[in-house]
């Protein structure tokens, strides 16, 4: 099983561990230790938000993803938010080096990773300092007390030890000497103390697994498999995990354990999937549905590289991945492959989008399929590579010279990436056009349960390659014209190299309508500009109408919230919270950003107040205002983190003139 999420730091750490500890294990170690003793009854809670925080090298992403995996096995509904620094190993013990992973798990349907954590697991002082302000008063802190020495406190900027100076009185604090208990557990195992110390994240995982009555067998099995080639590491991790679990059981430190019952899932088979993974699988599916080989041209860039990594493994599917010398070549190679009849895809993030622009313009002119995946991150320039933003929307809609329209599709959640990728492939192939597939750092790295679709029921994509002449001149001689169009889609006739008799030349120079020959004729250019625009506009006929979620009927609620991309989950959760107060709010989510669904103008016209939350300064707002002449209200967040449901709720309440309700319950951090 693929761990749903690990970040670069964890990966490096793991490899290093294996190198250091790849010695024979202790043959005496009894891996089938007796199961932990029976615990007293657990207290049932509906949902919990846990945030694991530690140094970049502490393995917090791994810990979080393992906790996620066992929680989805219950099954709880889950949503996660990994958050880590761009540096592989930021200076140890500093605030800049803190890596965190938040998970919300619930016995009911949830949409977001939650707002304020109920439990903060802090592996060092820096982690506590960086995240304490997010923990509501009365919240639970589980800290590694061993890490709170003078030096570490100093690095984190603490003048005195918060575990001792009374400053944490407002919280429920569990100071657990995780490092020394881990070392103790690994004593006599043959693992060197310096290496055993690295297993303390598994101690934390074991402790939290006890506290929230998570099943332990899957974790044992996972450790066995993951570290099968490094017995020492495996044994240390097993011992640490067991020790953490047993500590919860026996230390009498914790008043109670908690239980989050299984969530009511729609019947089906589920997996827990990250956005980047689902996106890669969707591309494979899209190519299969089109019966075309998948070609990926890519240049490594955070946070998109995992798509390249995933597809590079899938060679058995006929996938060819090409790590190019730069972003431009990655797009160029993908376009070249498309010319040959492959489904050309290039994956990147913001800086790469800038570099690929000219090649995408060429694809507009050649009218060939090209899927450009942009996993958006904070910009401008290098920005903050590991933090999320939606600030590339206008760059994708407009960011090419000349009149160069291109469809844009956006992913709303990790599992939706599968379907959205297929949709991008469909439009690219059937309309012979570059298509942007927008993801962002949040959906790319976070995970959610995904009800697996019946892949046999997916609709085929029709490439409909040209196989013969499609034009006759006045004297009746037939020939192939590359720019003869399908009357419905306006897609041009696409002949592949290798087809005898259909030889032709394409280029970035303006082409004569029909024949595709170079043309500098003004009237022809005007016609071609319009045709290319009409073709992209025609995509709207093939997409579903915007679906309005307004229980009273379209136009019934006094306010409409418009979401796109990953704001979907927070906006829907915020709308639900407003409704749970007995108030009305409507929502519409846009998967297609260019062209918009044909009914969008009518929908917007039915509402007096329209809110558009975005992780940018209002890019969709601008498009909607320009296109529909509606007065939308922009709600912006550019902090590198997704919206919280409570933030959306507050905005909607304000719009409803009921901001007073929010103030009364400001301590409620339980986003759904």
């Amino acid at each position, binding site marked *: *099983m693929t761990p749903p999420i690990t970040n670069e730091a964890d990966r490096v750490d793991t490899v290093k561990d294996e190198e250091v500890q790849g010695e024979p294990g202790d043959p005496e170690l009894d891996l089938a230790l007796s199961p932990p003793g029976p615990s007293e009854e657990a207290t049932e809670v509906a949902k919990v938000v846990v945030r694991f925080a530690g140094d970049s090298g502490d393995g917090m992403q791994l810990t979080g993803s393992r906790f996620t995996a066992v929680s989805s*096995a219950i*099954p709880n509904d889950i949503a996660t938010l990994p958050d880590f620094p761009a540096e592989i190993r930021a200076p140890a013990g500093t605030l800049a080096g803190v890596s965190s992973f938040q998970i919300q798990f619930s016995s009911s349907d949830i949409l977001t990773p939650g707002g304020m954590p109920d439990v903060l697991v802090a592996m060092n002082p820096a982690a506590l300092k960086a995240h304490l302000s997010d923990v509501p008063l009365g919240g639970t802190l589980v800290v590694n007390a061993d890490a709170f020495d003078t030096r570490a406190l100093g690095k984190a900027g603490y003048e005195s030890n918060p575990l001792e100076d009374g400053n944490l009185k407002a919280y429920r604090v569990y100071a657990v000497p995780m490092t020394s208990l881990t070392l103790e557990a690994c004593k006599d195992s043959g693992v060197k103390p310096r290496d055993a110390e690295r297993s303390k994240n598994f101690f934390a995982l074991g402790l939290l697994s006890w506290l929230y009555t998570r099943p332990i067998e899957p974790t044992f099995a996972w450790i066995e498999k993951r570290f099968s080639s490094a017995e020492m590491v495996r044994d240390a991790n097993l011992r640490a995990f067991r020790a953490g679990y047993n500590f919860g059981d026996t230390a009498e430190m914790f008043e109670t354990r908690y239980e989050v019952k299984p969530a009511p899932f*729609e*019947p089906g*088979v*589920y*997996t*827990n999937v990250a956005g980047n*993974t689902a996106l890669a*699988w969707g591309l*494979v*599916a899209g190519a*299969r549905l089109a*019966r075309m*080989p998948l*070609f990926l041209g890519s240049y490594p860039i955070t946070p998109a590289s995992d798509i390249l990594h995933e597809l590079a493994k899938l*060679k*058995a*599917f*006929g*996938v*060819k991945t090409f790590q*190019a*010398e730069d972003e*431009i*070549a990655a*797009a*160029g*190679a*993908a376009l*070249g*492959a498309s*010319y*040959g*009849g*492959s489904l*050309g895809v290039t994956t990147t993030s913001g800086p790469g989008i800038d570099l690929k622009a*000219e*090649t995408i313009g*060429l694809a507009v002119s*050649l009218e060939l399929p090209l899927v450009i995946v942009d996993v958006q991150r904070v910009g401008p320039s290098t920005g903050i590579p590991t933090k999320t933003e939606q600030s590339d929307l206008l760059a994708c809609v407009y960011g090419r010279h000349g009149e160069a329209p291109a469809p844009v599709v956006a992913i709303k959640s990790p599992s939706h990436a599968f379907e959205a990728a297929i949709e991008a492939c469909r439009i690219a192939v059937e309309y012979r056009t570059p298509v942007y597939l927008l993801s962002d750092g949040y959906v790319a790295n976070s995970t959610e349960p995904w009800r*697996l679709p019946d*892949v046999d029921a997916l609709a085929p994509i029709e*490439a409909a*390659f040209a*196989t013969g002449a499609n034009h006759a001149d006045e004297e009746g001689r037939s020939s192939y014209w590359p720019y003869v169009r399908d009357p419905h889609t306006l897609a041009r006739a696409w*002949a*592949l*190299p*290798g*087809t*005898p008799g*259909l*030889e032709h*030349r*394409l*280029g*970035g120079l303006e082409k004569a309508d029909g024949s595709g020959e*170079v043309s500098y004729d003004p009237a022809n250019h005007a016609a071609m500009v319009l045709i290319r625009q009409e073709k992209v506009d025609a995509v709207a006929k093939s997409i579903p109408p915007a679906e309005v979620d307004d229980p009273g009927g379209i136009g019934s609620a006094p306010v409409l919230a418009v979401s796109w991309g990953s704001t979907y989950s927070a906006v829907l959760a915020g709308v639900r919270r407003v409704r749970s107060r007995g108030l009305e709010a409507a929502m519409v989510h846009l998967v297609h950003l260019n062209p918009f669904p044909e009914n969008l103008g009518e929908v917007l016209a039915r509402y007096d107040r329209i809110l558009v939350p975005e992780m940018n300064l209002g890019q969709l707002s601008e498009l909607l205002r320009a296109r529909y002449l509606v007065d939308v209200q922009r709600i912006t967040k550019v902090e590198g983190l997704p919206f919280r449901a409570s933030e959306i709720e507050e905005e909607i309440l304000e719009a409803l003139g009921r901001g007073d309700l929010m103030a009364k319950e400001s301590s409620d951090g339980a986003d759904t």
Partner: protein
Amino acid sequence: MVPTPESSAGNGSLAPGGAGSAARNVNGSGPGAGGPVANGPRSNGAGAGTATVAAPATSRKDWVSDQEVKWCPGCGDFTILAAVQMLLPEIGVRPESTVFISGIGCSSRFPYYMNTYGIHSIHGRAPALATGLAIARPDLDVWVVTGDGDALSIGGNHFIHLMRRNVNLTILLFNNQIYGLTKGQYSPTSETGKVTKSTPYGSLDAPFNPVSLAIGAEATFVARTHDMDRKHMTEMLRRAHDHKGTGFVEIYQNCNVYNNGAFEDITAKENRASNLIPLEHGRPIRFGENGEHCVVRNPDGSLRVAEVADVGEDAAVIHDEYLEDSSPAFALSRLASGPHEPTPIGVFRDISRPEYSEEVTRQVATAQASEGEPDLKSLIFSGGTWSTN
């Protein structure tokens, strides 16, 4: 006796390991050739999948498109176009399986004049598009046509990476040492001090030597020719095309409008004997009306031109195209610092190294053989699942 370029044709017994003898598969799709699995076109007409079936013969007119050639009258590009159009029928390839990809510049109009498949792409990026196409469709015969500005200035990065990857294609660099299409600015191969519209006080840049650059970038086949000798040019094109991997040919090409006579010192009929150094595998490197000049190795490994009378009959370096060590080929490329002194032409280097698109195809085939029939369902179920009723 002055060695003639033509005599270098058959490399026969002098070619260790048959380097350069692996002609491109022009008909067959080969194992796992990445064409679409859909219908018709992939079958490539007669002879699909069978490299042994001879392609129907073509003549020059089959390769000439109906487009009017719009280069300036007298441009060296005409010679190159004619050479290519005359070569292709000889080497038994088919127009439908041939693709010319170019960037931007005068030379890059080339694909429009070929009755083949082709893309006139964007400035400097032809190697990138061609690489993707060659990887996706190893069954195709891919050519890149580029110029000194296109390949070495805006496209320099793609050029060097194409060389090191050894993708199966032929790349022709029309080097006229000037920007023609933009009306006469200096290029990355222009001599230092060049006075042009953009450098009225003379250019400050040191020029690239394209052959040196290619050899430094791990090219497996590097040749140079010029537009005043179609026979030699045709032979270089043939050799480059026959080479398995990237075949690179620098063509000295006269721009009679913006840089007329740039190569006259070496390519004019009366100057060739004294200023062109024909490279011929396995032969002493000698030139001159009567073979009176030769190339000898200095104690430090560099090369210089000497008089046979001074150094003796046996002193000349024996040219070896197949040396793994690129230093001797590089040293040859440094003999002349510009086309005004004795300059080697011919094949500098022709070595065998795994070809990129074939390796990509092999990895895919290996995965398919070991992992069996791929199944989308098992893929999406691969991450661990649970069921609810």
